């Protein structure tokens, strides 16, 4: 195991930092899209070690953070008012809805179960034929195959009491929306490695050439990120704007085609509302008509209006990279992981929580 520490080796990290410093001749802003990368950047102190000309901007890369308030309210409504066992990933639990969170609803007696995989929810549906089982299916492209597969499994088993509340968000349209936002200024991107494991690199070619931004598909360990930053900076300094793959040990050019097949068997692309950002065209997945009986939105026709965010939370600006967490007046004051006002403080992959937990430069 001679390479065991390769991706966290401080000597290697120092080398990359020196190379980056030698390459940079002017200020650049680079967005890391994935919340796992934000976590890694902050936790390992990379942000403080980078040359001052490089500004890392934290992207909207946490699906828990961008799930709309109305969907959370809808999930709570189903668990509280209908004959439903609501299943979800653990990260969703503390995200505040417009009034309460799923955790608070659970404490008040709502049937909410936290699962590791949507496939477990299908088992629960099989074991509880007299109840409706709804899986709150959040996630980026990485999670979509598992959520789609749960529908296929339920269909194979002939279950009529299973459905998903789909809340998928897609990364490339969000990157385009961020580029087009007049207030945000991004020179290059680290694209999310695990998203690309599923979808491959092709989706990024038009973005890179049309908007003249380097896009480097990057892993999430410290050395991955430093390598990714160096690759972006080299392109910027050479006025080159292409898609490169730093994470080639995992990501294949074409992605995982079996997973793509499963996704598009069950889902079709639709416009999606992102919490704190608004509606982004063609940035989500909806269950296809063919599987309509597994679509909780259709099965339980409840309409819940989009509620406003907490008035003091600036999560939209945080997720578009316009402001840093410590620029929010409530950061570490009224808003902490134990009492989050907004979603980026809830999940450990949210930018506000990452800063709260790890940034030595911040007084909390």
């Amino acid at each position, binding site marked *: 195991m001679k390479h065991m520490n390769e991706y966290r080796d401080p000597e290697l990290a120092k080398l990359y930092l020196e190379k980056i410093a030698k390459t940079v001749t002017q200020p650049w802003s680079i967005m890391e899209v994935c919340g796992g990368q934000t976590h890694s950047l902050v936790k390992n102190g990379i942000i403080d070690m980078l040359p001052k000309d490089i500004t890392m901007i934290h992207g909207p890369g946490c699906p828990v953070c961008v799930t709309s308030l109305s969907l959370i309210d809808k999930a709570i409504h189903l668990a509280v008012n209908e004959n439903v066992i609501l299943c979800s990933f653990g990260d969703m*639990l503390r995200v505040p809805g417009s009034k309460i969170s799923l955790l608070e609803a659970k404490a008040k007696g709502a049937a909410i179960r936290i699962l590791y995989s949507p496939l477990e929810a299908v088992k629960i549906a099989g074991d509880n034929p007299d109840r409706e089982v709804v899986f709150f299916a959040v996630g980026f492209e990485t999670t979509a195959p598992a959520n789609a*597969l749960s529908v296929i499994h339920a269909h194979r088993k002939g279950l009529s009491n299973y459905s998903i509340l789909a809340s998928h968000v897609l990364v490339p349209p969000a990157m385009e929306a961020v580029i087009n936002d007049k207030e945000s200024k991004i020179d290059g991107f680290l694209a999310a490695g695990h998203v690309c494991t599923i979808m491959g690199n092709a989706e990024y070619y038009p973005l890179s050439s049309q908007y003249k931004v380097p896009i480097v598909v990057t892993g999430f360990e410290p050395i991955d990120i430093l390598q990714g930053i160096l690759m972006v900076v080299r392109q910027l300094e050479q006025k080159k704007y292409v898609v490169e793959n730093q994470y080639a040990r*995992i990501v294949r050019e074409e992605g995982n085609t079996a997973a793509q097949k499963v996704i598009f068997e069950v889902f079709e692309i639709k416009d999606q509302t992102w919490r704190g950002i608004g509606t982004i065209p063609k940035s989500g997945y909806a269950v296809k008509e063919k599987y309509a009986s597994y679509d909780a939105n259709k099965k339980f026709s409840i309409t819940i209006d989009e509620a406003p965010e907490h008035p003091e939370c600036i999560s939209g600006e945080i997720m578009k990279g316009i402001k840093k967490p410590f620029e929010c007046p409530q950061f570490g004051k009224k808003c902490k992981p134990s009492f989050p006002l907004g979603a980026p403080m809830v999940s450990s992959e949210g930018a506000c929580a990452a800063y709260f937990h790890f940034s030595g430069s911040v007084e909390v």
Partner: protein
Amino acid sequence: MCLAIPGKIKSIDLQYNNSVRMAKVVFGGITKEVSLEMLPDADIGDYVLVHVGVAISKVDEEEAYKTFKYLEEIGELGELEDVEDYLPKKEGL
């Protein structure tokens, strides 16, 4: 939730009239049932990256070991264990 965790395939079961391959995958000391539907050529003994119960990519042993150790260090393995035990205990609830 977005990270994928590497583990080793211990055994493979055929389900749904032999049309679906489910595997027992070992992560450190924990074994989980995982779908191999996205990796048709994965076999017993292979290392795979698993995301929410579905294997999404094959990895080599060294990569698997490094990644597992890293996830352990940064405290990202909680979701593998009984998730209910991991729920944040909020004061007063």
